[in-house]
C-alpha cells in the first residue's frame, strides 16, 4: 500500500482510537461515534458496487438487515459473536449472488429499479417472517455483557478492516476490471474482462461488508426491527454517505458517514422527520450540481488551487 493512503489512514484511524482515551466523551457521543463507524463500514461496502462498478443500488439495506438478523439470531443461539458476524456476512454474500446474477446484466436506471424491487420485497417478506424476525414488534438482541467503550473500539477495528478491504479491491486486478466495467461494459469484455463474474463478485464483497455493519448495529442497538434494518430509508442512507463524501473514492464513504451522522442527529433533534428528508434531497441535488465527487472532490479542488499559487 502506498504511503499516500497509509499515512492519512494511520492519522485518521489513530485519532479515532485515541480520542476517547484523552477526552471523556461520554456514553452518548461514544455511541454516536460507533454508529458513524458502522456507517463507514456500510458506506465502504456500498461503494464497492456503486462507486467502483457504478451500479447504483437502492436496495443495500437487504444486506444490512441480513447481517443484523443472522448475527443476532446466531449470537442468540450461543454462537461466539465474531463467528456470528462472519455468518451474517456470508449469508448476505450468498443472497447478493442469488439476486445479483440475474439483475447485474441490467445497467443504469434499470438496475437501480430492480434493486428497489428486491429491497422492498425482502423487507415485506421479513416483516411477515415473524418467527425469525419478530415481525413489526422486532427482535431483542442477546449479546451478553458489552460496553460502549469496547463496542466503539471493535467497531473501529471493523471499519479499518473494511477500509483495507476496499483498498485491496481497488488496487487489485479485480479492481482494474471493475473500473473498466464502469467505463464501458462492452469494451471491458472485448479486452478480456468477464463482466458477469466480476460484477457478481463485487456485489458479494459489497454485501458482506454491509452485513458486517448490520451485525455490529444489532449488537450496539440491542434491538432490531425489519422496517428499520431492511428499510428503504436505510438503503437511501447508504447511497447518501458515499455521495456526500465522494462516489467511487476511498475516503468518500469515511467522511460521508461522519457528516451523515452529525446531520442526522442535528436534524432529528430539531426538526420533523419529513423535513429532514427534504433537507437530504436538497443536499443531494446540490452535491450533484456543484461537486459530483462530494467532499473528496472539493478537497482535491482546494489542493489544486493551493498548488497553483
Amino acid at each position: 500500500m502506498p504511503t499516500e493512503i497509509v499515512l492519512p489512514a494511520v492519522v485518521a484511524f489513530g485519532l479515532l482510537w485515541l480520542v476517547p482515551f484523552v477526552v471523556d466523551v461520554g456514553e452518548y457521543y461514544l455511541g454516536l461515534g460507533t454508529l458513524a463507524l458502522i456507517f463507514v463500514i456500510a458506506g465502504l461496502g456500498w461503494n464497492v458496487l456503486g462507486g467502483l462498478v457504478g451500479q447504483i443500488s437502492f436496495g443495500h439495506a437487504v444486506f444490512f438487515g441480513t447481517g443484523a438478523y443472522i448475527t443476532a439470531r446466531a449470537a442468540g443461539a450461543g454462537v461466539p459473536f465474531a463467528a456470528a458476524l462472519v455468518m451474517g456476512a456470508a449469508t448476505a454474500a450468498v443472497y447478493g449472488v442469488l439476486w445479483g446474477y440475474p439483475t447485474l446484466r441490467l445497467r443504469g436506471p434499470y438496475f437501480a429499479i430492480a434493486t428497489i424491487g428486491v429491497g422492498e420485497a425482502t423487507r415485506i417478506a421479513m416483516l411477515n417472517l415473524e418467527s425469525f424476525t419478530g415481525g413489526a414488534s422486532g427482535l431483542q438482541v442477546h449479546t451478553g455483557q458489552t460496553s460502549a467503550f469496547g463496542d466503539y473500539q471493535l467497531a473501529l477495528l471493523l471499519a479499518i478492516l473494511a477500509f483495507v478491504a476496499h483498498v485491496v479491491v481497488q488496487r487489485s486486478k479485480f479492481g482494474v476490471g471493475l473500473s473498466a466495467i464502469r467505463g464501458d461494459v462492452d469494451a471491458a469484455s472485448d479486452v478480456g474482462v468477464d463482466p458477469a463474474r466480476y460484477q457478481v463478485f463485487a456485489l458479494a464483497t459489497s454485501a458482506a461488508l454491509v452485513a458486517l455493519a448490520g451485525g455490529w448495529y444489532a449488537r450496539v442497538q440491542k434491538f432490531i426491527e425489519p422496517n428499520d434494518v431492511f428499510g428503504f430509508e436505510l438503503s437511501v442512507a447508504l447511497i447518501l454517505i458515499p455521495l456526500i463524501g465522494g462516489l467511487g473514492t476511498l475516503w468518500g464513504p469515511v467522511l460521508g458517514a461522519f457528516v451523515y451522522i452529525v446531520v442526522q442527529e442535528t436534524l432529528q433533534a430539531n426538526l420533523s422527520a419529513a423535513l429532514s428528508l427534504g433537507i437530504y434531497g436538497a443536499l443531494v441535488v446540490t452535491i450533484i450540481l456543484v461537486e459530483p465527487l462530494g467532499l473528496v472532490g472539493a478537497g482535491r479542488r482546494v489542493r489544486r488551487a493551493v498548488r497553483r499559487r
Partner: protein
Amino acid sequence: MPLLELEGVTRRFGGLVAVDDVSAVVEEGEIFGVIGPNGAGKTTLFSMIAGSLRPTAGKIRLEGHDLAGRPAHRVVRHGITRTHQVVKPFLNLTAAENVEVGLLFGNRRVDDRRGEAVALLERCGLGAVADRVPGELTLSQRKRLEIARALGTGPRVLLLDEVVAGLNPQESVGLVELIRELNREGVTILMIEHVMKAIMGLADRILVLDGGALLAQGTPRAVSRDPAVVEAYLGRRAAKALEDGGGRDA
C-alpha cells in the same frame, strides 16, 4: 490451415436474418475487407466473430478450433479482438490505463505494464497523450486509442469496425498507414469500411455483404468489377472511379 474460417455463419433476430449463411476464409497475414450497404450485417458478423453475439448457426474456427458462441472475454484469449464503430474508451481512465486494462486481461504476460502501455501508445502515435483521459482526445486520437487498447490484448486477428469513418482526409491517410504497418508486423486484419478509397487500397481481399448474405468475395479489383456489387452497393459511377483510381490486386 487457414487462420480464420467462417462456415455458414447465421444470425437471426426474431424474423429478421441479419447475417445469412456466410462462409469465408481468412489467411494469416491478410488484410480482409468487409463492405456492404447499411444494414448488410457487417457489424453483426464482427460481433459474432468477436464473441459479443452468439451465432444462431454456423462455425467460426480459429486454426480449426471452433469459437462460435464463446463470450468475448474468452475469444480475446484466443487472440481475436475488435474495435467499435462508435469508439468505446474507458472515460474514467487515462489513455495509458486504458491500454493497461488490455495488457492485464488479454492474451499476453507483461511485467512492466505501464512501460508496455506507453510503448503501444507511442506505436499508435499517442505517446504525447498517455496521461490524458479520453474526453480530452480528438476523435482521431480516440480511434487510435481503441486500436492501442486492442493491441494490448495481443491479438492475432484484429477486427476494425469503420476506423477510418468520420476522419478528415489527412487523419485517414495516417490511420491507413498505421493499419498497414500493424499488418506488416504480423497482425491479421479484418476491417469494415465505408470509405472505399481506404479499403480498396488496403485490403488483399474483400467480402461484400448485402441483406445479410454474401454477395461477392475476391480481390478489390475483381469485386469492384462484379456487376452484382456495382448494382447493390457501389453504383456505376463509383465503380468506374475505383477502376480508374486502381485497387490493388493480390
